[in-house]
């Protein structure tokens, strides 16, 4: 839809576009050149400062960190999704005593920084005798804060299913629980898949809080490595590129899923339109 704001260009517009292309390219190249000069002047581009990242031991260490990142993200995502589904169902419940607490949890957690939750688990809970292992000190706050986000995603998915589906379920004699489980949720699940993947990107980004917890995930591994080899900039740039590669692929997957659901839905709408036209 990015071609929204212009028509097929005429000769004058084409000239203007060419000028803007040249100016834009020059500005970007100029900024890059400035950055490279600054890096080179500080000696950060010396080959021996980058060489270590062409060797296996450095990568083995960083990939170990990446593995811990993925582990924490997967466990936190599983917990957050289970809690999020429960919260979404609670929020849509007909019973007020279930609905209100669920809504309160979702609204409250949305307005508490994840780092504050991490500090609570790190410094507050041990005082009350709850001293979790390092892994859980990262995973628990992430699950608590992301549960609210997943609840929002699931709720939107459930509400997006056509109301007639639930009514039809009740009409054929299913209970509310059965209707939800057998009719509404399977349809909602397919629709929320892209949003779940993009929310998981957010969760994976949040695992970088391991830096604060000193849980050896990717960013903390980078910190340890930089302290060991003294290549601070190089290490953190490599770490950033690894995050970019992983999250970029996940975001791409979310977009592919999004277009696929849209296509399936468009095709289904098309089919039903044609069949009604025939009838």
């Amino acid at each position, binding site marked *: *839809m*990015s*071609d*929204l*704001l*212009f*028509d097929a*260009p005429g000769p004058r*517009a084409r000239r203007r*576009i060419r000028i*803007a*292309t040249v100016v*834009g*390219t020059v500005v*970007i190249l100029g900024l890059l050149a400035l950055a490279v000069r*600054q*890096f080179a*002047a*500080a000696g*950060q581009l010396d080959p021996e400062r980058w060489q270590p990242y062409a060797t296996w031991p450095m990568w083995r260490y960083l990939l170990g960190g990446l593995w811990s990142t993925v582990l924490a993200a997967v466990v936190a995502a599983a917990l957050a999704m289970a809690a999020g589904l429960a919260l979404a169902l609670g929020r849509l419940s007909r019973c007020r005593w279930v609905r209100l607490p669920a809504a309160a949890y979702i609204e*409250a957690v*949305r*307005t*508490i*920084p*994840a*780092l*504050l939750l991490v*500090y*609570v688990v790190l*410094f*507050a*809970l041990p*005082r009350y005798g709850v001293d979790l292992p390092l892994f859980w000190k990262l995973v628990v706050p992430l699950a608590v804060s992301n549960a609210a986000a997943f609840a929002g995603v699931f709720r939107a998915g459930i509400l997006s299913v056509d109301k007639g589906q639930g009514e039809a379920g009740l009409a054929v004699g299913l209970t509310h629980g059965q209707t939800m489980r057998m009719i509404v949720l399977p349809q909602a699940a397919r629709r929320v898949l892209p949003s779940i993947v993009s929310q998981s*990107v957010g969760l994976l*980004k*949040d*695992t*970088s*809080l391991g*830096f*604060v917890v000193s849980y050896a995930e990717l*960013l903390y591994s980078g*910190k340890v490595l930089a302290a060991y080899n003294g290549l*601070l*900039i190089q290490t*953190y*740039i490599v*770490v*950033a590129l690894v*995050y*970019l590669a992983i*999250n*970029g692929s996940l*975001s791409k997957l979310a977009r592919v899923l999004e277009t696929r659901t849209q296509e399936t839905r468009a095709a289904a709408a098309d089919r039903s339109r044609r069949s009604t036209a025939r009838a």
Partner: protein
Amino acid sequence: MSVLLDHLPEFWEGLVVTLQLTAASFAGAAVLGLVVTSMRVSPVAVLRGIGTAYVETFQNLPLLVLLVLAVFGLPEIGIKADLLVTAVVVIAVYEAAYIAEALRSGVNAVSAGQGEAARALGLTFGQSLRHVVLPQALRTVIQPLGNVFIALTMNTSLAAAVGVVDLTAAANRVNLIEAQPIPIFVGAGLAYALVAACVGLVTGRLERRLVTAG
């Protein structure tokens, strides 16, 4: 409760720093986000590419990685900047990607006929964007922008992890002295919730006013 009152100055200073971080980085992010959005809908392919690359990059990098890279890395290449200023710039650059994404969905929501009519009247790309499309787009994205603002407020707390003494850091410091975590962290959480509630109130009111005006 008395811990909060005893350490009111620390909390107050922390809250002020958090508000400064929030306001300054939101202003920066809004301007930058607007520029990136204009680039993404422009007829110039290179600018569209840059805009898309910007959004893709900063949505897929953890903010903490950027903060750590800027705060500890910039001095290494000979750039010495104030810690608070560095944090503001990094948060603004990061959140601009989210604002650009919200604005773009708003631009896409404006019906194509509006842009066509503007061009039929002879408005240039910039004029049709400024006078016709963006004012209508802004109206539909007030709620999403409010959500970005709340997320930004929460994200400013990450500055505490690189040494900025904001509300989160202040709460942590007071707790290390007093060791009464419950009132201290609940108090800090309430302060954040209060800021978010104000944002919600303002965006809700703004939305009502603009929607009735339109």
